[in-house]
């Protein structure tokens, strides 16, 4: 698995994977739907998978001494590394914002404020992307566009729901900047991270199973 992951980094990675990590800084933009940061993460996965397809990577990797089923797993792990890095960078940016911006500027009128709970929602969006994109792609690895459109549609649906509920009364504590209602936000963060892990593991399991039957 170590060799597979190193191969992913040396032969398959697309530069946008690093560029889109910088989009974590969008949390500094006032009144902005910050959830789109996590859409860009999906876009970087799309570019990686597209690059791999154009390079004939899947067929080549299957000739190497690895179990065929581990081929999707390596790519999902690499995607997870970038997703975790994005979550960590977003959290760092939020901490900096909270330490430097006045409270009035930290309230987001366009959606959720950048706070602890927002990172939980981000994890949920990334997990939803993984669960839709990877199993669909590894059912037929030549197809990248359709799985991306479907997974992005799921992400935007979730983003729309998260932005819409921000205006509901019961939701207000979660939408406010930290440190108010810290306990609730922490629970949302942990819930989001838990769901991310569960959905990513399930995505890996389904992708491996489907890829076994694929003719490369």
């Amino acid at each position, binding site marked *: 698995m*170590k*060799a*597979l992951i*190193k*191969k992913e980094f*040396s*032969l398959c990675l697309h530069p946008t994977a690093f560029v889109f990590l910088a989009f974590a800084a969008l949390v500094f933009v006032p009144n902005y739907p910050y959830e789109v940061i996590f859409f860009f993460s999906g876009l970087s996965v799309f570019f990686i998978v597209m690059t791999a397809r154009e*390079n*004939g*990577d899947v*067929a*080549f990797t*299957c*000739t*190497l*001494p*690895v*179990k*065929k089923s581990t081929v999707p797993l390596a790519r999902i792990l690499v995607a997870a590394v970038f997703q975790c890095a994005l979550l960590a960078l977003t959290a760092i940016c939020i901490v900096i914002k909270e330490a430097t911006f006045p409270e009035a500027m930290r309230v987001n009128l366009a959606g959720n404020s950048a706070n602890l709970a927002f990172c939980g929602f981000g994890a949920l969006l990334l997990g939803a992307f993984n669960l839709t994109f990877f199993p669909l792609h590894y059912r037929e690895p030549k197809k990248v566009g359709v799985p991306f459109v479907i997974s992005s549609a799921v992400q935007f649906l979730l983003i729309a729901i998260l932005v819409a509920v921000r205006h509901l009364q019961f939701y207000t504590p979660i939408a406010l900047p930290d440190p108010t209602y810290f306990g609730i936000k922490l629970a949302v963060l942990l819930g989001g991270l838990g769901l991310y892990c569960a959905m990513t593991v399930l995505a890996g399991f389904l992708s491996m199973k489907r890829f*076994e*039957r*694929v*003719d*490369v």
Partner: protein
Amino acid sequence: MTLRALEVENLKKVYPNFTLDSVSFAVEEGKIAGLIGRNGAGKSTTLKSIMRLISSEGTVKVFGKDFSEDEGAVKELIGYVGGGFRFYPNKTLSAVAKAVARFYPHWDERVFQCYCKDFALVLSKKVRELSDGMKIKFSLALALSHGAKLLLLDEPTSGLDPLSREDFCDTLLTLKKQGVTVLFSTHITSDLMRVADQILYLSDGAILLDEPLETLAKRYRLQLFATLSEAGAAGAIGVKEGKDGFAGLITEPSEGREATLDEIMIHLEWERGRQNESAH
């Protein structure tokens, strides 16, 4: 007792318009086997099925190890070349080789450098800068540098010039002396005449012949006949009309000359086609 390097049993793959039909054969350790057959006969499908690149039924054992039970370990024993190297066009040869080397505990950088030198491969070049022949040479260099005990080669000589093909055949014979087993598909039967010990002849997804080259070459003779009825009376196989009369394969001692692999293939296919036609 000779060890079987490769055992294939009941390999089956069904496509809408083609079926690889219960292909079974074995290749003994240290032997070179040639896989021949017309386009679409199932040569690449067979090799891909052996490598589990395509999902198919049947069992494959490499040096007694079941492929499906220990896929990673079995693949370590195999050097696979599926035609030219058509992967990672924008990467340099050294970057690809470095990534590949990590997968093989027995990767020998010295051997790889030797092959690169022999094949005139410049490692700082990008894959897309290589000609088709050089791409095949790069594939071969990768496949030969990790101590593979079994080489599976899908038309490895198709893009090579005659001198490179000669070098390739010499390399195979050297590897054979080292105990390496080779199964390779090709349309260039003269290469097989030079190096092969065994011929596997695939036709319409089924093994039509599986014999030592020597036996095969001795069995079939090509004879010319003035008329079709004369050929029929002699029991000729796959009789075809040519500019000098009718030619067919004869299995009995006759005046005809020893048939080449090309001629055996052509006349057996012709006979098969004729039989299929009359059956319908």
